[in-house]
């Protein structure tokens, strides 16, 4: 099966994020008050062949640990969707 994966990588909680802070300070200048906790990260999207969704998840977790994130300073989340025969997508 072919899966579509989206991996979000951000600095870990507690690690200062100067880009996020700068954005957070800029937003009130446009009238958007009450915004806090801005974190800037990366989105990495790809397609992936795997037998089933649990294999896809285990592959994606491995990629995150070994390359996509540096877990000393970054944390990651992902979502995986599978392409079904009729082209519809289902969340796994």
């Amino acid at each position, binding site marked *: 099966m072919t899966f579509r994966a989206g991996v979000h990588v951000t*600095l870990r909680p507690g*690690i*200062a994020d*100067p880009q996020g802070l*700068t954005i957070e300070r800029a937003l009130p200048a446009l009238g958007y008050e009450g915004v806090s906790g801005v974190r800037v990260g990366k989105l990495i999207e790809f397609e992936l062949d795997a037998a089933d969704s649990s294999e896809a998840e285990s592959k994606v977790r491995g990629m995150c640990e070994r*390359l*996509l994130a*540096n877990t*000393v300073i970054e944390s990651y989340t992902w979502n995986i969707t599978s392409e079904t025969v009729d082209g519809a997508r289902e969340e796994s």
Partner: protein
Amino acid sequence: MTARVGIVVFPGSNCELDCQRSFERLGAQTEFVWHDDHVLPDVDIVVLPGGFAHGDYLRTGALARFSPIMQAVAEHAAAGKLLIGICNGFQVLCEAGLLPGALRKNEGLKFLCKWTELSVDVPGTPFTTRAERGQVLRVPINHFEGNWYADPDTLEQMRANDQIVFRYVKNPNGSLDGVAGIANDTGNVLGLMPHPERACESLLGSEDGAVIFGSMLDHVIHLQQTPAPV
């Protein structure tokens, strides 16, 4: 006796010629090693120079650690031989797990290119035998991601083990504990953000970088002169 220095060149390295010139002026023999090679020539010291290895895509140093030569570099370090990573080379060593911690973007989100002063906090390492404790070295920095970080337990362990070798006199980038350069737990691998190879002749404004490179050469030559244990 002469020390032999292998300088690894990645696609995107740009400080290899400066490293070559500085080590040769101090009396070493040097050789460039292409990142795609699988074996190192017979060298006493390996240098990972500064630059933008593999374009620094994804994260600084993240892809360089997959270059074929890095396996041989890790074996060189595991054998107790000297390995130094300068600037991008430091970032590569952290990503490769050969040094603890990671380099984040500078606190002020500015690329910094300027002279800094480093204090030698641990004399007597293979990288600082020519220095005294607290000696201040004037060496330039040139980086965007020099803000070193490690978790509190790691930092405490490194302090106790004398691995925080160089600290900035005035922290330019937010680096934890003012760290400018660190060693591994066995003391034969060093990473630092400042560029000693750009401070090895008076014409460039400082010769203090030669304290670091010269210490490394002294260490190698001392080992060559010491008879191997029977």
